[in-house]
């Protein structure tokens, strides 16, 4: 653990609970919780690995949403990403903005790391993961779909950036 910060991390779970109670909701959201976590070692040197990007942002045309407005996995070309993104998820709209894609989908930064030889290559597609209130949908539909797409692209590892 490296912890050199000057402030205490924001208690987002407590803030969110209190906010929804203030909206008049009785049932608190239950965040996923596990005592342990899986761990897989990289199968090849980092300098040879193909790395994929996964973000929580959506496409500007909202084409990742169905008729009931439920979000689904979507993918984009790292060489031709959309000019703008749907960032309608929970983030701090008063303190910052999401006008710079690189702050939540760092395609240029990753290409720089490829050019400098830190990683072997960037996977040709990035993927958009729905931020869903349903743990079950995430685990039975969205995550398997992302895994399938990563395998199609030959990705050895993934960087996930949560807005």
């Amino acid at each position, binding site marked *: 653990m*490296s*912890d050199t*910060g000057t402030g205490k*991390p*924001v*208690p*987002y*779970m*407590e803030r*969110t609970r*209190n*906010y929804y109670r*203030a909206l*008049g909701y009785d049932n608190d959201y239950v*965040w*996923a*919780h*596990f*005592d*342990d*976590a*899986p*761990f*897989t070692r*990289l199968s090849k*040197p*980092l300098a040879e*690995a193909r*790395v994929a990007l996964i973000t*929580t942002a959506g496409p500007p045309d909202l084409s990742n949403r169905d008729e009931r407005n439920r979000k689904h996995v979507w993918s984009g070309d790292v060489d031709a990403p959309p000019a703008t993104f749907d*960032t309608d998820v929970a*983030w*701090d709209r008063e*303190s*910052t*903005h999401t006008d*710079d894609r*690189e*702050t939540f989908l*760092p395609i*240029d930064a990753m290409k*720089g*790391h490829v050019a400098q030889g*830190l*990683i072997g290559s960037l996977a040709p597609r990035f993927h958009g*993961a729905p931020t869903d209130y349903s743990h079950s949908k*995430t*685990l039975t539909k969205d*995550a*398997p779909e*992302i*895994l399938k797409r*990563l395998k199609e692209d030959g990705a050895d*590892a*993934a*960087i*996930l*950036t*949560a*807005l």
Partner: protein
Amino acid sequence: MSLVARYLEENGIPTVLIGSGRDIVEHCGVPRFVFADFPLGNPCGHPWNKEMQAAITGLALRRLEAAEGPRTTVRAPFDWRNDDPEWRERYNRIRPEDRERLLAIGDARRAKRGQAPREK
């Protein structure tokens, strides 16, 4: 997003999650976590600061080789803007004068979603 990281890792893809909601990510537990202590929205660095974005993503990539086990958190060595020291208090803050407005937002939200109205 933490659940996706766990699923990929369980299925043979090593992952690093870069995020700013430290309590939420650590509550779930992920294989490797780079914590960016910024307002939610810019986990990979301050807007338009390419040098910082390269540093944070580089730190994340190096964790793929450096991490020795799961549930490791590394804090990115950057703070939010010096001219905004109050940012930590801002997200979802509830001031007394907001109470009625927030209840009205909740009522509208329940109506839009076809949910039962609040008991008054």
